[in-house]
């Protein structure tokens, strides 16, 4: 650190105008971000500790109520990972799952958000649709599998349908909730600035509901993955859920953990994407 501090030439004629040296800046940056850096450091240590415990439990094949006899070690999983990334079949499983999520989730958002907005604005639409939605909502998407297979001509369509259903209700309900939370004073403020119905919808109701809409999208994305994996395990031929189940049937224990980790990473990645989109769309919420 001191070496860097001395590196810059310092024209010390008018002291107040001197820009702070790199060392000072680095120190200040460190002070301001100390909390964040600490969290990252502890996070890394905690993940490494998790891997270490996993490694120890599996190499010593611990049996203590829970049996680690057949559980693959982290190294075995890593080995099957390096093999899998060169395997076009594994990549195809992942791509297919991603495509199903993309289609199912997008459809849910395209239908759920506008429907929620309209239900929130027009009482009659709410009164008609809400009871049906409330009856269907508690049914887990997985329970729809047999029905979906009957409803849709292809397996692919029924899996996308299950994914759609999983994410649809959280998106709808949260959008609706957002609409009911809109501050009526803001609506009145818009009205006495000359805004009519459509402008109020576009300029007040919609942006005011956005935080709740994004909560719905985040929750919906999580449920979409849950539903997708379940559907793939039950009725699929491809997809990362099917890959994980198939690994169990074929006694490829390392691939089970690989599938699980892949699902986790994909779920994390997709919720990060939604969070990023939320920050883009709602710059006023940035701290």
């Amino acid at each position, binding site marked *: 650190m001191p070496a860097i501090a001395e590196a810059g030439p310092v024209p010390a004629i008018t002291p107040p105008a001197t820009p702070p040296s790199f060392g000072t800046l680095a120190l200040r940056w460190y002070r301001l971000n100390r909390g964040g850096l600490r969290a990252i450091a502890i996070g890394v240590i905690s993940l490494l500790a998790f891997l270490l415990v996993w490694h120890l439990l599996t190499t010593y094949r611990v049996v203590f109520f829970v049996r680690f006899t057949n559980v693959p070690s982290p190294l075995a999983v890593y080995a099957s990972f390096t093999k899998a990334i060169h395997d076009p079949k594994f990549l195809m499983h992942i791509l297919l799952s991603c495509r199903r999520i993309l289609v199912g989730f997008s459809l849910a958002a395209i239908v759920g958000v506008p429907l929620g907005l309209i239900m929130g604005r027009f009482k009659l639409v709410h009164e008609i649709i809400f009871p049906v939605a409330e009856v269907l909502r508690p049914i887990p998407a997985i329970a729809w599998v047999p029905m979906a297979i009957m409803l849709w001509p292809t397996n692919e369509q029924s899996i996308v349908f299950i994914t759609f259903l999983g994410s649809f209700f959280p998106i709808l309900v949260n959008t609706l909730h957002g609409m009911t939370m809109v*501050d009526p*004073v*803001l609506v*009145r*403020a*818009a*009205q*006495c*600035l*000359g*805004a*009519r119905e459509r*402008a109020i919808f576009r*300029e*007040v109701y919609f*942006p*005011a509901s*956005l935080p709740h809409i994004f909560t719905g999208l985040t929750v919906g994305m999580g449920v979409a993955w849950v539903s997708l994996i379940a559907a793939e395990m039950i009725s699929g031929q491809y997809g990362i859920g099917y890959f994980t189940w198939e690994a169990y049937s074929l006694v490829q224990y390392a691939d089970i953990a690989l599938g699980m980790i892949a699902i986790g990473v994909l779920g994390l990645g997709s919720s990060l994407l939604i969070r990023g989109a939320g920050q883009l769309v*709602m*710059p*006023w919420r940035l701290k």
Partner: protein
Amino acid sequence: MSEILTKAPQGHIEVRNFSLSYDSIEGPVQAVTDTQIHVKPGEFVSIVGPSGCGKSTLLNAVAGFLKPTTGIVTVDGERVNGPSAERGMVFQQYSLFPWKTVRENVEFGLKMRGMPRSQRERAARTLLGLAGLEAFEKHYPEKLSGGMKQRVGIVRALATGPKVLLLDEPFGALDAQTRVIMQQILTNMWQRLKISVLFVTHDIDEAIFLSDRVYCMTARPGSIKAEIPIPLERPRQQSMMMSSEFLALRRGLMSLIREESIKAMGGEISDMGMQGLNIELHGHSLADVI
């Protein structure tokens, strides 16, 4: 004063035979009854009264948010049928759009009117400059202090050039020092724009300091108890609040409101009850002692 008349000033508010009631399970509840008020063009008029007396109800009816049960509200002879940009409104809770920057908030009314973007941007910048907020045009409201928010609120309401400005306890949430500055800013803007103002407050000093006339309302169901002209000369200075003239007006209004506040609270506080509370606390909390 003669200058105002030659400009054919607008913004004559008239409320006649006004009453407003709403339904409840126990039958209709009278919020405001048998009320007449008016604001002459360019006049600054305040309404004061005990809390819950219906002064905000009255203001909301002038704004067009509430329909009178009986009577009529007109501005320049035209009946008020709903909210419109002709009647600008400033709310106690600021009610700025959190998703719009300061400038976008000010632009909103102009945008609704269909003014092209570049033109309304220029207009908003000029207005923000007048309020000393040009440096904050790109900020989101959340980042502003209460006084700054309310300055934006006033500028936003004035941007479309309304005939009248309605303010519903606009400085109620501000600290005392900011409040005084805001009163000065509002007075300045009002004098420049020669706009009619109807101002609702429960702060008697504020009402006297700002107004040409003050209406004092009775406890619920609200009606006009008294109309007090404020003959203090303008421009008004903060120091006037110590003058005997000001204090006399204050005393008068104070006793009017006190009567009504006592009614609103359901009668005098009983002496018996007060005797029971004659406890020396010596630093203990009341709960501890009782």
